[in-house]
C-alpha cells in the first residue's frame, strides 16, 4: 500500500468516526449540563404529576405543556406530510414522465432548500390573508404550525419515497407485471413494502426535523406561557421554543440548566418517535412477509 493510500484510508476512518464522536460529545455535554435539573419538578413544577397528566390541572412552572405542544405539532406535521409525501413520491417514481417529472422534482428540491424562517413567514402571511378575507376571527395556533411544519418536512418524505422506489432493482419492478399484477397491485404489494426501509428513514428524518424547528413555530403560534392547548386553533408551548427563550433570556445558571434539561427531554422525545417509527416499520414488514 502506498503512502497516499494509507493516508487516504486513515482520513476515511477519521471521517467515519467523526459523526459518532460528535454525537457522543453532544449527548455527554447535554447530560453534564442538564442531568441535575432533570426531575419531575422540571416537567410539572409544583403541580402533582398525576393531576397534570390525567386531570389536566394547569402546570405553571414546568415544561409538560411544552412537551405536549411539541408532540401535538409533530403529530399534525406528520399527518399532513407523511401521506402527501408518500403519494407524491409514488407519483414521481411510478407515474410522472418527461418534462412534468423534471418540473415537479425541481419544485420539491426548491421546497427542500427553503429556509424554515421563510416557511414561518409564509404561515404568518397566510393567517393575515385569511383574517382579511375568509376567516376574520382566525389566529395563529397549533393547526397553522402543524401545517407549516408539514410543508417544511414534506420534501424529506417525497424524496425518501421517490429515491427508495426508483432505486429498486429492475428485476423486482418486472416481477409484478410478469405475474399478471396490475400497476397498482405491483406498487401496493411489491414495490412499496420493498422500499419500506428507505421510506421509514425519511419519516424519521421528517419527524426529527419537525420536532426541532423553532423558526416556523415562533411565527405561527408558539408562545412562552400558554399552558395546555384546548383546541387546534389555540396558542401553545413547545420545547424548542422554550429552549430558545431560556437560552436567550436566562437570569441564573439554574435557569440555563433547566434549558439543558429541556433539551434532554426533547432528545428523549425524538428518540421515542424514531423508535415508534422503527417498531411500526418492523410490524408492517412482519405482516407483509408472513401475510
Amino acid at each position, binding site marked *: 500500500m502506498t503512502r497516499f493510500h494509507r493516508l487516504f484510508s486513515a482520513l476515511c476512518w477519521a471521517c467515519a468516526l467523526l459523526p459518532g464522536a460528535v454525537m457522543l460529545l453532544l449527548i455527554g455535554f447535554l447530560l453534564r449540563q442538564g442531568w441535575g435539573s432533570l426531575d419531575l419538578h422540571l416537567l410539572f413544577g409544583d403541580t402533582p404529576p398525576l393531576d397534570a397528566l390525567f386531570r389536566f390541572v394547569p402546570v405553571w412552572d414546568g415544561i409538560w405543556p411544552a412537551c405536549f405542544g411539541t408532540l401535538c405539532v409533530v403529530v399534525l406535521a406528520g399527518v399532513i406530510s407523511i401521506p402527501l409525501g408518500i403519494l407524491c413520491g409514488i407519483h414521481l417514481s411510478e407515474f410522472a*414522465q418527461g418534462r412534468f417529472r423534471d418540473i415537479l422534482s425541481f419544485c420539491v428540491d426548491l421546497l427542500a432548500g427553503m429556509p424554515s424562517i421563510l416557511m414561518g413567514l409564509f404561515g404568518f402571511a397566510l393567517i393575515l390573508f385569511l383574517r382579511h378575507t375568509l376567516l376574520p376571527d382566525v389566529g395563529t395556533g397549533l393547526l397553522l404550525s402543524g401545517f407549516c411544519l408539514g410543508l417544511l418536512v414534506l420534501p424529506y418524505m417525497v424524496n425518501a419515497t421517490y429515491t427508495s422506489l426508483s432505486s429498486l432493482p429492475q*428485476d*423486482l*419492478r*418486472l*416481477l409484478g*407485471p*410478469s*405475474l*399478471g*399484477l*396490475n400497476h397498482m*397491485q405491483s406498487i401496493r*404489494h*411489491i414495490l412499496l*413494502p*420493498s422500499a419500506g426501509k428507505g421510506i421509514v428513514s425519511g419519516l424519521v428524518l421528517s419527524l426529527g426535523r419537525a420536532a426541532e424547528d423553532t423558526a416556523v413555530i415562533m411565527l405561527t403560534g408558539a408562545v412562552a406561557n400558554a399552558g395546555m392547548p384546548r383546541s387546534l386553533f389555540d396558542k401553545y408551548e413547545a420545547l424548542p421554543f422554550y429552549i430558545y427563550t431560556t437560552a436567550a433570556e436566562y437570569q441564573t445558571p439554574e435557569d440555563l440548566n433547566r434549558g439543558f434539561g429541556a433539551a434532554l427531554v426533547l432528545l428523549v422525545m425524538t428518540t421515542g418517535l424514531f423508535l415508534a417509527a422503527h417498531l411500526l416499520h418492523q410490524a408492517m414488514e412482519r405482516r*407483509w*412477509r*408472513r*401475510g
Partner: protein
Amino acid sequence: MTAAVSIKNLRVTFNGAAVLEDITCKTRCGELTVIVGRSGSGKSTLLRAVNRLNECFPGCSTTGVVRLSLHDGQLAVYADGTCPERLRGRVGMVFQSPNVLPLSIERNMLLPQRLVRGITGRAAEEIMRRMLRRVGLFDEVCDRMDAQAATLSGGQQQRLCLARALALEPEVLLLDEPTASVDYQSARRIEDLLLSLKDELSLLVVSHSLPQTRRLADRVLLIREGRLTGQWHRGQANADAAFEKMLSTTF
C-alpha cells in the same frame, strides 16, 4: 396442429432504435421452442413481446401481430381490447436470475394466486403444494414454508419461481435463460421439468447453451442482430445436419 404462438412482421423499438425487425414465425402446441442467438441479438425482447412485458420499459414501441392459441380461442396480443395484465396472467414468465419476492416461501406462492386469480385459503394451499411437488421442491421446503425464499439455493429459488408461475395455470410459459444462474444438477432438473411440461403448455425458452438446445428443442428460432435468420424443426428432413449447420455460427 394449431399454432401456439404466431408472430407476423413484429418490430420492436426502444426510443426509436430498432431491437427487433420484421420477425415472422410460428410455434406449435405441444412443442418446446428454443430461441437462440448471441448476446444483445434481441432474444429476450422477442420473448417479452409475447407477454407485452417490453411495455414496462420506457420508450418502447411495438408494431406487428402476435397471436396466441389459448383454450378459449385465439388472442391477439396487441389488439386494442387486450388487457396486458390478463394476458400476463395466462402467459407465465421465468427470468434468468431467480426472481423471488422478498417474502417467505409460502407467501411467494400464495400472494400471486390471491392477487391474480383471487384464490385464497385451502384451495390456494392445495395448488401451492401440488406445484411445489411438480417442480420437485416440496420435500425440500415443506418443513420451512415460513422461511425467507431468499434463503434457498439458486436452483431451489429458480424452481420456486417455476412453481409460482405454474400455480397461475398459464397456457404459455416464457423462460429467459432459466438455467443460466444455477448449477449443473439444478439445470438438468429444470430441463427435465420443462420436457415434462411441454405436453400441457406452449413453452418458449431462450438459451445460450448448445447442449441444452439440442436436448430440449423441438423447434429453434435463430435471432441475429434483431432479425430471424434461421429456423429449425425436429421433424424436418436431415434434421441433425441442419441443426449443426444452423447453430455452428451461433455457439
